[in-house]
C-alpha cells in the first residue's frame, strides 16, 4: 500500500520535499515505517530522535497503519 507522509521541520530538509510517498505491506506498523524511512534517508539517523503522528496524535511503534491515515514525521519540536 502507498502512504503519503507529511514531513515537517528538519524532516522536510532531509527528504527535500514536504511529502514523502512510501510503499508498505498492509498491516505495517509505525515501527516498520520508521525502519523504512531510516533506510531511505540516512539523515534521519543523525537526529536526536523523531516520532510519527497518525491522525494528528503521536503514535507508538506498535500502531498499525491503515489506508487514509494522516501520517507525519515529527522531529523534536522547538516552538515558542
Amino acid at each position, binding site marked *: 500500500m502507498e502512504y503519503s507522509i507529511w514531513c515537517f*521541520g528538519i524532516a522536510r530538509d532531509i527528504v527535500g520535499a514536504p511529502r514523502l510517498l512510501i510503499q508498505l505491506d498492509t498491516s505495517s506498523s509505525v515501527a516498520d515505517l520508521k525502519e523504512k524511512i531510516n533506510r531511505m534517508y540516512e539523515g534521519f539517523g543523525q537526529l536526536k530522535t523523531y516520532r510519527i503522528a497518525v491522525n494528528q496524535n503521536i503514535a507508538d511503534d506498535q500502531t498499525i497503519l491503515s489506508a487514509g491515515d494522516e501520517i507525519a514525521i515529527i522531529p523534536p519540536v522547538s516552538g515558542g
Partner: protein
Amino acid sequence: MTNKSIYIKNESLSVDAAYQYILDERSGGNCIFVGSIRDLNMKKTVRSIDFDCYDAMALKEMHKIADELFSAYEITRILMHHRKGLVKIKDIAVIIAVSAIHRDAAFAACRTAIDALKKRVPIWKKEFYQDGHYWINSTP
C-alpha cells in the same frame, strides 16, 4: 465570547490585542508571556528564523493545553498565539496571555502554558546565521 483564543498566524502578533482579548471585568490578575526573537543563540548571531508548523495538529494540541489549564487553575480567559513563517530579530514568536481573579493562577497557568507549548506543540524553529542554519533541538 469564548474564553480561549488559539491561533497560528503568518503575520505579526499584537500584545495589545492579546491583552484586550483576556480583559474581563471579573479578573484582577493578567499575565502575558511574549517570546521574542533574540539576536544571539548558542553564541551565534541569529539573522532570521523560519517557523515550520503542522497547523492542524498544533492547534489541536494548543486547545488541549488550554483545556487542561482551565481544569487545573481558576482562570478566566486564555490566549495562545504562535507565529509561523519567516521572522526577524525582535519579532514576536509567541504570545500567551491568561486572566484570572487572582494573580497566582494567572502566573502559574501562563508559565505552564508556555512550558507545555514548547514541549508538546508541533512547531519547529530553523535559525539562520551568517554561515548557515540550524533546526533547533533536532540534532545533537
